Every structure is written in structure tokens, then in C-alpha cells.
């Protein structure tokens, strides 16, 4: 690092002794304070980015889980039908929406948009809310098979008009439940512990 050495030498060379004193008394604390403040402010403001709780992007249509899953009590698996046969729960094709909306609420602009998409064979592109890093392999199947309710991780979706992320997707969160799964499991479950070895999620 000769450049840095020369840079520092040059910096000190150009300063008279009292300037150095001024630097250490005045500029150094201010600089350190500014760096610390930057870290704190940036860190605070990007909390949702890092822990992602409360992330609730606007979706292409104003679909309300509170209405469908809450008031109308449509089961989660009616739409997220992959959850027992795939790693991913999946998002339904427009065909699934139109099972009901062929006759229901056809006057709404959002429904008309769905009808348009269906007739043209095009998908509805939703905004993704829950995401895991590429090196994590989460599988819905064993969790659903163990009887864990969707709400355990996804929050009370049936009360949300706009879905937001409720759980931080950090490894500590996964491990907490894997070490002591009882709060998440149905009372009749015989499962004592879930696997904690690396290969469970990383491969």
C-alpha cells in the first residue's frame, strides 16, 4: 500500500503543528461522530431490508386476503395448491381466480383485467414478498405435513388487505423453531425436535 503511506505522509507534511492539534481536537471527533451517525441512521432505516418485516409492496390488483381467506374462508390451499407436493406453495394461475369470478363481481375493473388476461393466456405478475437467499433450500412440504399452520410463519394473512412479511427470514428464526417446535405444532403432534444440521437447508 505505498499510495496510502504517501498519501498520509503528504497529508501530515502540509500541516503545521497547531493545525494537527486543531485536527485531533475538532475534525477527528466530528468525523468519527459523522461516521457513527451514518452507520446508525443507515442501519435503522434499512432494518426492513435486512429483516424485511413489514415489507408490503403494492400488488398489481387490489386482492384482499382479508376478504377471501378471512371473510369468505377460502382455504389457503385452494390457491396455494403446491404446498403439499412442491417445495414452493405457488401462486395460482388466473384460471383459479376465474373459477369464481367468471360470475362474481365481473363489474370490477380488477376482475375485468383478470378476464382479459385469461382470454389472452397471459399471467398476472405479482410482487414477491417472501424471499430467501439462493443458498437456502426451504421446503413447505414437511412443515405442512407436520401440521404447522401457515400463519406461524406468514402471520395472520386472513386479516390483511395487503399482505406484508411478518417473520424475519433469518437463520436464527428457523433454528429457534427447529430447536423447540412445540409452540408451532398442533398439541397432538409427537414431533420433539426438527433437524438442525446444515444440510437440512444448505446444499
Amino acid at each position: 500500500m505505498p499510495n496510502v503511506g504517501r498519501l498520509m505522509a503528504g497529508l501530515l507534511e502540509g500541516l503545521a503543528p497547531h493545525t494537527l492539534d486543531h485536527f485531533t481536537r475538532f475534525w477527528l471527533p466530528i468525523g468519527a461522530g459523522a461516521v457513527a451517525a451514518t452507520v446508525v441512521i443507515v442501519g435503522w432505516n434499512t432494518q426492513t431490508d435486512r429483516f424485511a418485516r413489514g415489507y408490503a409492496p403494492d400488488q398489481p390488483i387490489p386482492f384482499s386476503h382479508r376478504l377471501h381467506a378471512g371473510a369468505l374462508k377460502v382455504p389457503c390451499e385452494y390457491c396455494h395448491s403446491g404446498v403439499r407436493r412442491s417445495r414452493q406453495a405457488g401462486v395460482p394461475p388466473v384460471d383459479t381466480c376465474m373459477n369464481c369470478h367468471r360470475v362474481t363481481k365481473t363489474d370490477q375493473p380488477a376482475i375485468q383485467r383478470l378476464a382479459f388476461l385469461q382470454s389472452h393466456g397471459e399471467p398476472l405478475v405479482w410482487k414477491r414478498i417472501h424471499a430467501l437467499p439462493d443458498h437456502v433450500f426451504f421446503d413447505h412440504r414437511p412443515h405442512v405435513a407436520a401440521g404447522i399452520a401457515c400463519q406461524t410463519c406468514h402471520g395472520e394473512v386472513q386479516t390483511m388487505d395487503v399482505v406484508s412479511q411478518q417473520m424475519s427470514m433469518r437463520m436464527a428464526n428457523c433454528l429457534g423453531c427447529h430447536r423447540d417446535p412445540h409452540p408451532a405444532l398442533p398439541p397432538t403432534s409427537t414431533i420433539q425436535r426438527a433437524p438442525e444440521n446444515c444440510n437440512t437447508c444448505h446444499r
Partner: protein
Amino acid sequence: MKREADDSSRPVVAHDLVASYAGLDALNDPLSRRRFLTLLGASAALAAGGACSRIDRGGILPAARKLRSSAPGVVSHYASTFHEGLESYAVLVKTREGRPIHLQGNDLDPRGQGKAPLHAIADVLRLYDPDRLRHSLIDGRPAPWQEVLGNLARGVADARLSGRPIVLVTGAVLSPTRRTLIEELTRAFPTVEHVAWEPTVSDEEQAAIRACYGSAVRMRPRLDKARVLVCLEADPLRNGTPAVAADFASRRRPKAAGDPMNRLWVLEGALSLAGAKADNRLSLKPSLAARLALALARALSERGLPLPAGVSREALAPFELPAIAREAGLPLAKLNALLTDLLAAREAALVLVGPGLPFAAHVAGHLLNAMLGASGHALEIAPAATPTRSASLADLRAVLERMRAGSVGAAVFWGVNPAHAFPDETLVRAAIERTPVRAAIALHPDETAALCPLVFAEHHWLEAWGDAEPWPGLLTLQQPTVEPLFDTRAGEDVLLGLLNHLGVSVAPTYSEYLRQRWRREVHTASALVPFERFWQASLHDGIVKRAAPPSTTPPFQAAAVADATSAAIRDQPGQGFELLVVEGLLHDGRYANNGWLQELPDPVTKLTWGNVVTLSPSDARRLSLADGAIVRVQVGQVAVTAPVFIQLGQAPDVATLALGHGRQTGNVASGVGANAFRLLQRSGGPALLGGVSLTPTGASIVLPSAQPYQLAEGRDMVHSGTYAEVTRPTASQPVESLDPPTPQAAHKWGMAIDLSVCTGCSACVVACQSENNIPVVGPEQVRRGRAMHWMRIDRYYDGGADAPRVLTQPMLCQQCDHAPCETVCPVNATSHSPEGLNQMTYNRCVGTRYCANNCPYKVRRFNFLDFTSTKKAPETLVFNPEVTVRPRGVMEKCSFCVQRIEEARAEAKVEQRSIRDGDITPACAASCPTEAIVFGDLNDPKSRVSQLAADARGYRVLAELGTRPAVTYLAEVKNPSSGDNERPVTVTRPGERHGG
């Protein structure tokens, strides 16, 4: 998963910073404080700007329509058919989200038994080859398919009017429907001449088959019925049909001393996989093979075996076994032992002759099989239902000469590349350029397509429809498993388009044509079922069995023997080297742009990337040549240059060179290796060339070898010997360990590898590469020992240099219970699972490489470079989405295909049961044609792997280090002839180590 920044200020800041750095370049004058603070501010702004970007996790794209079968994240398998040379194979294509990612054999295929050949497994990479043709071309410019077709149709119509012939050159036509289409074309336009030419099919072998059986027949060795197998320069275990290797292995799994085994005699000049496996291997110059085989026939007839009708003993009189044994330097006692074996086995004996050997040797082989009664028993012969090949090299040369003379009106090359695979490049060039209308139907812009103004971009077979008839009575279907990636069509669509353009009414697309023909000709056999159901069932299974036509073994034609004897007497070995031109891993060069196959170590030499002239150690010494010295190989007027490799076990005065290298197009293929097709002036396909001179050029390279040191040095990594030798009890002490005992879980994963049936074919290496997203690193990195294969096949030589014992050992992570790698990792990136897996967690790895240095098996691989970001679209689509793609600076190794274990576990949990034996098959085990690799739960005493691990032949590699591997090797059992006392028995066991 892709994160995209929506902060538009971010690139601006970065740009400013770059500008500031540009001002910093010299740093000659001292930096002012202001400037320093500017930089500090810019860095802080950049850091804040980067950190402040709001998350955008992209979109979720659900299916546009409800899918009947598949869901995102769910694997679907589709049955299809893979064609190569004169064979076709029923395969299963594993797809995820509508794209093929892995191949295996079709388990409904009665012969294939769920195994796919090596080339089929590797060919999924060619589908995603970025060098593929993306559009059809007119004079090198992209053009719509219809326009190219219109141009061709006009040209063909002109050629028809002028009365000049139209030549269609294709590869072997294995598909009955494709054949029907070509017949329809030649019927509609009698001036169309069809030439089906396969560059890697030996003309001499085909000529001998026609001479011996009167017509084109197809042969299938049934090694499961052969107690004695004699290979004359033949290698049934390499690159071949998985069923053949499986049949061979079915007789090589002794459970106790004295269990019957087959006996493999190999007489060869160049070491082959069969030679490595041989119970008795004799070094023989290939030019002597014909006379030796005829002498064996004579000796058998003298010992009472009748000659076929019409063959007189006088014809064989010139071939005396003692004289030829003397000339070949073979001990007569061994040949007598071979005769005794053959006489004892009779129809359960089989003689296989290598495709490169001359006509006379092939006839002699057929004569021996006819005498023994093997024909029809251990060698199934059926009339060729599909005339698979009609053209020899001479036929094609005649066509090209006529083209050069200007008497051909139009030429279409479909799936063949004569500009690479025909020996005389100038003739091909002149012939094509003198033909007024010329078109190529090709997957790649290859050497031949470069000469054609009209180029049709063809589907890869995974995108196309088709069918095949691998054996009379068995039909297989080929179906698309992915939407075409580029603007391509099936090659058959060109012919259909031509017919439609020229006024013949046929189906508009080949898929329709195929259905129509199946409805017309195949469905009638089972007409009780509606066609649609029959068609769906056939697509599902991929296989349709029909009543086989009654097969009678055609009689041996005695007239062939006279031709063979005169040829054998005429063709005395001349001066100079004998050069065996053999088929390598790249077939006719069509796989040369496949990095997996270029980097796959050759099963014998362990060399990657390019072909070499193999020489015996004595010849290399005589010519003062070392590994990598570049020599000029001169055959007649033609010469190629290639580096030398000294191959132990090779006969003196014999050299080999593999076909398929030396391509001039393709980003991977071009310039790698030498084009050995140029040497095949007289007959096509693998051949034996005499009077070859080798001249050192003085230049030399370092060969990209996957295993630079191959001598066993008396160490005992690989146990091999007779049953008694390998099961001799040992007094090895269990190694004490200071490590805490490993925790017990419900399962303990383990593997057993039976070296007795492992042929070293390397299908597992490619399957592992495909399954686990293993990168291709290139020759320079291979030279530095940085090849990335998780599974490798080690090859060791023991004993003398001229007749060495050849030992083969698949090596992968041994998943040690006391793993030396785990204790040295400073960040706990590699750790032990309760189920006995040595886990590698990439996101924790910081790349110290301590683990690799501490691994006694040398199975850990380090990503020295970033091998992924340089990939061009659509190559990354081949990745298995269940396995992390590793970045630079990260260690990796075999995981026992943990993604398959976890998949089986998830399925078991959904079905609320425990994992059963056989639920989990790692990619290597699934691809192994001989089922040498067995995976399972060692805690379950009934599992196959537990039983194999307890076998008397079982041992663990380097067990004396106390690593407690989870992989048990079963020692290789050899079955040498009882009269053979000369073979040195140097099997050593733990505790008897000498040297190391």
C-alpha cells in the same frame, strides 16, 4: 431471487467515484485534505446509497394456464429416445419448470434397465450450447425459415427440371418414420439420391457382416449368456450400450469362493477398458489379430469342433497356431488355455472383434462364433429392420466426385459434417462449391454449414419428435421436453416443406406426420384401444412392444472365409508403426463443443481436452519421446500433429489416435486436438493403418491430465485378485480415536462400490457433473490440478510396464465418520451430520483450503476462479435448481447427492412413513450401467448397502488412518484361467504395506 436496485442515484455516485479514481491515477503530487475528504464523502455516499436501496424482490410469474400435471418445483420425467451411430436408446428426461436438466435411462426398457449411455447423459448440455444456430441463414444472414425453404424449393425444382440428381446426405436413419418420409421423398422425386453415412461406423466391419451373412444384419452381444468372452481389440465396456456392460457384470459378482464367473480374454495392442478388466490379457499387434483368429479356428476344428458348411479345413491350412504365437510373441500355453476355455463353453463363448480391425479379422471372428454356436445364442443376430447404413466412405467419395464434376443439381446435408469427418477436405469443399444448390440442416454452424448458402437451424433432439426401432419388435418414441429455445425446426420439416412446396400433399409438420404414421402402421396391432389412448400411453412409456417377427439366425456364408484368408495372407504387417484410429469420447466430433465431454478424463489415459498419440514405453524410449512431445503422424501423403502419451500396457510398434477432435468451429471445440479423420483415406470409421511414421517435431506441451501419477507403487488402495486372495482375513487393528463418538440418528448413509463390476466407463462422472452443477474449468486449470469433478475414476498400474495390472477405482468423498477435513476448518463450514454426512456449507466457507490439504482422499475441490458469471445464455438453464451454484473462493465436494436425500425425506414425511431402501439413488449410482454403486442406510440391516458392506470382499480405502469412511469398496475378483501360473500375485492387505 434476483435483487434489482431501483435507486437511480446509485450509478451516478459510482460513476463519480470512478472519475475521482481516474484523477488519482498517478498519485505523484501529495493529496490535498480537500481531495481526501471528497473521496471520503463519495465513499460514504456510495455506501449509504447502496445500503438504502429499497428491496425489490422481483415478480412472481405464475403459470398462465392451469397445468394438469406439473407444479413449480416439481420434477417431471418424460420418456424419449436418444440416437447415436447405429444405436438408439430409450431415455427418461428429468425436467424442472419445463426445461430438461438431467438424463437417465428409461426403466421400462427391457434391455436398458434404466441406464443411459454416457453420451446421452452429457448431451443435455448441447441443448443449451450458446454456439447453437439460433436462426436459419441465407448467405450467413439470419432469415425466416419459410424464406430459406422457399429458396431451397426453387433450387430443387430447377435441379429437377434440368434432370440432374438431388443428393440428400444424412446420418444413419434409425427412425422408421424418418425412413418412411425419406422413401416418400425419393418416390415423389426419383432424382433424389439418399446417402446415409455414419463417419464412426467401420466400413471393414460392415463389409464383413455383409460377406458373412449375405445381407445387412444387426448384432447384439448377449454377455449375460457368455461364460467365456474373447475380445480381439474390442472394447464392449467403453462408450457402449449400458445393457452390454450390465450383462457382463451379471456374471462377475461372486458371493463365495467357487461361484461361477465369466472369463474375459483380451488380446489387444492398445489398452482398453476391457483389457483393464481382463482375466487374461495378452499383448497382440492388431495386424496379427486376423491370422491369430483364423489359426484359433483351425486349432478348434482340429480339436473336433466342426467348421460351418462349405468351409474347408484346407482354407485354414496356412494359419498354424504355434507359428503365429511365435510371430506374435505369445506363449503357446496361454493360447492353448484359451482354446480349452472355448471348447468347454461352446455356445456360451463369444468372440468380439474391434471395429478398427480389418475385414479378415471380422470374418474370422464371425467364423469362430459360428463354429462355437455363439451366433444366435451369446450373439443375437436379427435382420436389419431399418437399413441403418448404406454408404461407405467409397460411396460418399463417389458422390462427392460427381458433385465436383458439376453433375449434381442440389445437395442437402442433414446432421452430417463431411467437411470435418471426410478425410479429403479439399474434395468436400470443391464438391459443395461446384453444386448449384446446397443446403445444410444443422444444430451448429459447423464446417459443412459454413460452405452452404442455405442453412436450416435444426431442433436439438430434446426439442423434437421422433421414433426409433432399437431391435425388431421394440419401438421407442421421442418427444419434445422443452419449447424450442431458438427459432429452429425439426430437420424432417425441411423435407415435408419441400414436398408441400413441390406439390405433394403431406402433413404440415413432422409431429403430425409421426402421429399419422403411427396411427396407420403401429396402432393397428392393438386396435382394440382408441388411438388417442394408445398414443398417450406410448408417449408415457416411451416404449411399445410388438410381436417380434420370427427371427432365424442367418446361416454363415462360407464364401467369406476364402476372401478373409487371402486378405490375411496378403496384409502382412509392413514397416513402421501400426496406427489404430479409435473412437474417443467425442464420437464423430458432434460432441466436441460439449465441455463436460472435453473435460471428462479419458477412461484409460486420464487425459482431458484433446487427443494424443499413445505409444508403448519401449517405443517412446527408442524415439526419445516424453509425454507431451508433439509428433507428426504420417500416413501415406497425409499427416497430422498431436502430442505423445506413453501408455503402459500398449504393444510395441502400435500407436493410437482418437477421432472426433480437431474441430474448426465452436467456442469450446475449435482448435482442440487433431483431426484423425484426415488419416482415414481408404476406409471409413475406426481403422488400422499400417506403415505409419512418427517424426518428433521438437515441440512439446504439458498434457492436461486429471491424474498425472498413475503408478500404484505397491500400495493397496485397490484390492484385486482371485476370490481367495481378496477375502483372505487380515489382522488389522482397529484404530483408536480421540474424537468423541459420532451421534446416532435413525439413518446412517453409506455407499458400497463393487470394483468387480466397475468398468471405469465414467458415466457416473458425467452424471454427477450434470446433477451437481459442476463447472468446466478448461485445460489450463486441469494442468494445475484444479479439475472440479466430485467423482473421479482413479487408474493405477502395478507390475511390469509392458503387462501391468490395471486397477480402477471410483473415488469420491468418503463421508468419513472421523473426517480429517472437519477438524481443521476454522469457520465450521464443514461439519458432520447426525446421519453420517460430511456436510459442506458454502455460505460459511471462507476458502482457507485447510480441509482439502488435510483430506487423505484428495476429493475436495476449490473454486479458484469464478466459473459461472462467464457463462453465456442459455447455458445456465442446465443448472439443477436443487443445488447451489458455488461462487469463487469456496470449497466443494461430493455430498452423496444430499438434495436427493432431502427430497426423499420430504416425500416420506408427506406420506407419513420412513424412508425405504431404494428411495434414494445418487446420480452416480443411477447412471452406473453395472450397478457397481449402491447407496443406502447402513443402520438398516436389510438394506442392499448394509449387506454389501458386510461382504467378505469389502474393505475401506486408507482405513488404517482411522477416518472411518462410509464408503465400502468390494475387492475386484479376477477369474484367470487355471493353467495360468505366471501372473504375479502382488495383492497386499492392510498391515502388509511395503513402500508408499
